[in-house]
């Protein structure tokens, strides 16, 4: 970070002053456990537990199969890459494939979050409404205000440095996910221990989900994406004392935590609350209310709501900081973004990228909250953004195979056994998820399949290809940071 301080076209004295200011701030040191908690906070929370509880014992299958074909390849491959190269996905793809593709990878990781924040924060707003006054959840102005306040507070916290957000996101995970998750599981075990029959059948013939053809395939394959984001925090790998050894450890701990958080609480809810009461439409809190009501501790529901809010905001912080940092780093070394977006604040954080991203998110969030026609179709953006994110995985797996071939002796703290096989599985899984993303879900109703395919395909092309291409096309040589340019000059 400190090695790439200022754009090349800044006055020399200003460059020196800014570079000195940034260098005066040493890289914050994260422990591998903190990084594991950040990674877990980016991927897992209890929000999905009631949704998956509906499937009963089959939720184990629905999480384990994607874990084998998608989580494992993603975690292992990113562990190898991060233990050999600092910087995260942009660096891996840049080294393994090409720098423009490195930019594409980090752009896709960054751009998809812009559409993600409004729906995440709308969920947080509705959960806060549940706590103070449920009727507020239908109020556009309330939703808009909550989204704005929380988002910009998140930007402010993120702009204060990696360690500030690392602490908050880790505590968000502990308070918002690990503690309530443990409570759910313990109460579930107590429920069974009291001799009550499980509300969802727990026999072996219920381990597999109902097979209804395409709908079941969509459910299973789309669940690969439950583990999206495992690699995202690798951008902070240089904040570890010994990245080569500590990052793989951090990844394995995160993998275990993510699996436990996804599977056990969903199972516990399915033991206590019958599927017909776990209404998908009434929301997460209704399911928690039914769960706690059984134990005569309904008052725990608003506390669980506040915990969920803490977890969601902790997760949001990691997403604010990670992809934007990767985008900054490749842009400074290659000049892919204008100098204004490359500037750092006194904590060494890409504040201008965060603020610019915030302005775009603000417009989208206001439209979501205040224009009913936008909120009604907003789910489409969830599909487009996950499609865009899959480009990152395709590039990452391809880069890992190529790096093993082109730089076999580059020191790596961890080497994936059978890397080519693991990457092939990861690539095929990502391609399958990409293809299944074109199948219209429930929300699309009976409308034309072709129009859905065109809409999703169009969104994918515009957000994932055209916009990053425009940045590459219109970049200027002077946009490279002074030190990146000087480094290349002295090398040549």
């Amino acid at each position, binding site marked *: 970070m400190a090695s790439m301080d200022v754009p090349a076209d800044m006055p020399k004295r200003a460059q020196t002053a800014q570079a000195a200011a940034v260098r005066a*701030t040493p890289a914050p040191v994260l422990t591998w456990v903190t990084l594991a908690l950040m990674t877990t906070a980016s991927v*897992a*929370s209890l929000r*999905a537990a009631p949704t998956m509880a*509906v499937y009963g014992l089959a939720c184990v299958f629905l999480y384990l199969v994607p874990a084998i074909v998608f989580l494992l390849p993603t975690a292992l491959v990113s562990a190898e890459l991060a233990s050999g190269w600092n910087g995260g996905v942009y660096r891996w793809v840049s080294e393994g494939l090409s720098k423009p593709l490195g930019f594409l990878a980090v752009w896709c990781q960054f751009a998809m979050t812009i559409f993600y924040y409004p*729906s995440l924060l*709308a969920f947080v707003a509705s959960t806060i409404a*549940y*706590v*103070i006054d*449920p009727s507020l*959840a*239908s*109020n556009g102005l309330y939703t808009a205000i909550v989204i704005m306040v929380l988002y910009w507070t998140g930007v402010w*916290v993120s702009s204060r440095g990696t360690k*500030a957000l690392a602490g*908050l996101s880790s505590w968000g995970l502990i308070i918002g996910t690990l503690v309530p998750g443990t409570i759910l599981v313990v109460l579930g075990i107590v429920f069974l221990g009291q001799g009550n029959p499980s*509300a969802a*059948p727990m026999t072996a013939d*219920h381990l*597999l*989900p*109902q097979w*209804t053809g395409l*709908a079941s395939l969509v459910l299973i394959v*789309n669940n690969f*994406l*439950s583990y*999206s984001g495992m690699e995202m925090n690798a951008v902070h790998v240089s904040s570890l004392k010994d990245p080569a050894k500590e990052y793989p450890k951090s990844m394995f701990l995160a993998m275990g935590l993510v699996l436990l958080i*996804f599977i056990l609480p*969903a199972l516990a809810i399915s033991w206590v609350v*019958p*599927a*017909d009461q776990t209404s*998908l*439409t*009434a*929301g*997460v809190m209704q399911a928690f*209310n*039914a769960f706690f*009501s*059984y134990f005569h501790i*309904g008052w725990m529901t*608003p506390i669980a709501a*506040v915990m969920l809010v803490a977890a969601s905001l902790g997760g949001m912080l990691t*997403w604010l900081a990670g992809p934007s940092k990767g985008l900054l780093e490749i842009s400074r070394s290659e000049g892919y973004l204008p100098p204004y977006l490359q500037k750092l604040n006194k904590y060494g954080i890409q504040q201008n990228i965060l603020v610019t991203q915030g302005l775009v998110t603000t417009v989208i969030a206001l439209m979501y909250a205040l224009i009913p*026609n936008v*909120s*009604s179709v*907003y789910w489409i953006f*969830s*599909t487009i953004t*996950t499609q865009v*994110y899959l480009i990152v995985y395709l590039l990452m797996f391809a880069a890992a195979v190529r790096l093993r071939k082109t730089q076999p002796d580059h020191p790596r703290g961890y080497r994936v056994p059978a890397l080519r096989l693991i990457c092939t599985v990861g690539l095929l899984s990502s391609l399958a998820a990409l293809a299944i993303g074109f199948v*219209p*879900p*429930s*929300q699309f*109703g009976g409308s034309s399949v072709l129009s859905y395919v065109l809409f999703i395909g169009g969104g994918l092309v515009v957000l994932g290809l055209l916009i990053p291409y425009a940045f590459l096309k219109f970049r200027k040589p002077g946009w490279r940071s002074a030190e990146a340019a000087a480094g290349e000059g002295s090398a040549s």
Partner: protein
Amino acid sequence: MSPTRFASEHKWVYVGAIVVLVALAIIGVIQYESVKSTNEAAEKANKLADAAEDAGYPRPDTEVIERSLGTDGGIVCEDPATALRSALWKINVSNGAAFVGQRPVIGDTKALRAEAKILEIYCPDKLDKFKDRLDDLKTDDTVRRDA
């Protein structure tokens, strides 16, 4: 930056977050109306339990239904068909992701219709609009149930 300086710089961020969350939790617990068991609540809970049994589920505990839905259906009956509420549950008809991987799926017919039964018993005036929204959905039987 020394650890001491770091701690003092970020102390207020942590303190602020804790104060806001604790305040929300206290407000929530105070607001949470522990629903008193009344004849009306018991009667509605029995109706819902009957409906669940008729649909092939094991009969749910009516006391639990009373406590979670009371006499007015609680959060389930809170403007279920408005654009923002619909947007939220439409996003919830999704895979098992909790963050950026959340993606819509083809939802289970009965699971999606479960709320309609609650509305029918607790707030029938809101049922028609909600059903209109449900009728727009393409669903399938993706949850394995006992025959």
